[in-house]
């Protein structure tokens, strides 16, 4: 028995389904009943039910590409702040820096999360195509709005890149790195997406904003 419709707005504690269904992200199961655990949009795909959260901190997942800030040095690596409740660690052998070069505290790195343990010890991998990000500016948005910034098959980010001529790299954790072209305009566009993510007709408004 299913109680929620596809693309419904749900709030925590709302009964979504009962019986033979599989609960995924944003939901929890209690005595055979599936409930929403966050505010979000409910998606029903055959027997699978998930809720895409509209708010929330970034929680690391293996396979995600993120942007982090180096916060400390260790014997054979670095600790990296990935804009989440947990620090990540990057080993020296997992990043390629020049022979006379190194990572310093405050540097930006783009990396992939390779492993997240049960207690949230996080390992990063930052060899090509990832690695240190030189120059450029950093913009922070809500991690829950990252899918909107990228858009359907990258449409939104492609639009911003084309109109501003910048190189933009978006981390799943909500940090966005922008270099070259009209950096300021690109940053403003990112912030606009962050602010108005839930209002329909976003692509048109961003396009209008960038053309002005």
């Amino acid at each position, binding site marked *: 028995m299913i109680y929620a419709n596809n*693309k419904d*707005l749900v*709030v*925590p*504690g709302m*009964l979504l389904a009962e019986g033979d269904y599989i609960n995924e992200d*944003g939901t*929890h199961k*209690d005595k055979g009943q599936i*409930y929403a*655990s*966050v*505010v*979000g*949009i409910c998606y029903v795909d055959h027997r699978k039910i998930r809720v*895409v*959260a*509209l*708010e*929330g*901190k970034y*929680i690391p997942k293996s396979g995600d590409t993120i942007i982090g800030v180096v916060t400390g040095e260790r014997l054979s690596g670095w600790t990296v702040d990935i804009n989440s*409740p*947990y*620090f990540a660690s990057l080993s020296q052998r997992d990043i390629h820096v020049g022979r006379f070069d190194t990572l310093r505290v405050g540097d930006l790195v783009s990396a992939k999360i390779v492993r997240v343990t*049960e*207690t*949230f010890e996080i390992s990063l991998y930052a060899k090509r195509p990832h690695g240190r990000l030189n120059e450029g500016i950093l913009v922070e948005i809500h991690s*829950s709005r990252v*899918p*909107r910034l990228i858009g*359907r098959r990258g449409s939104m980010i492609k639009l911003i890149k084309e109109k501003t001529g910048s190189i933009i790299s978006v981390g799943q954790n909500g940090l966005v790195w922008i270099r070259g072209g009209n950096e300021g305009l690109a940053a403003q566009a990112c912030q606009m997406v962050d602010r108005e993510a*839930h*209002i*329909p007709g976003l692509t048109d408004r961003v396009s209008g904003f960038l053309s002005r």
Partner: protein
Amino acid sequence: MERVDGRRFDELRPIKIEAGVLKRADGSCYIEWGRNKIYAAVYGPKKVLPRHLEKDDRAILRCRYNMAPFSVEERKRPGPDRRAVEIGKVMQGALEPAILVHYYPKSMIEISVEVVQANAGTRCAGITAVSVALADAGIPMRDLVPACAAGKVDGQIILDLAKEEDNLGEADMPVAIIPRLNQITLLQMDGKLAEQEVEQAVALAMQGCQQVYQMQIDALRKKYAGAEYE
């Protein structure tokens, strides 16, 4: 029986809830409950400070309740006092069972409740506001936690005491529940009630909580109305 503000015995004061009012907090809520005016803010999950409070298997909850010096009739000395610490503690206890704390081990959720104007029933209004703020912060929960008080005035059990009733009445009993499980997470009482009256008061308060629960849902719905994704 006629109440001071002309309400029926089972009628709540007018309640207005608004989610997401503070820009700097991860989640926030403003509530007007009769003449109570309260802000709730939620931060986190974030790294635990001080470190020794860290729990390996779950997130910890830190609650701070504070009354503004101008929130009551006679200026209140600013800063935490015995009462504020106690209310912070019971709020934490009321909210924790509803939060899926084991999702975020080794982290901390910070809750701040600021009473701008008080008129009896601030802890109930506070808990109600905080659970909306928690949802607004995207923290996974089993359910929202509505709270509401019942009490005894002039020998009759009534819902949601106002300041005058609280001062003159015989008993006041705040209750917070998890509506979906019908479980009580907060139950306090001051004053005297007979065994039978306690049961009556709890039942009445839980009824009131269900009404508050609907208003919480409406507040969250209102903020995100028309939201779309992907």
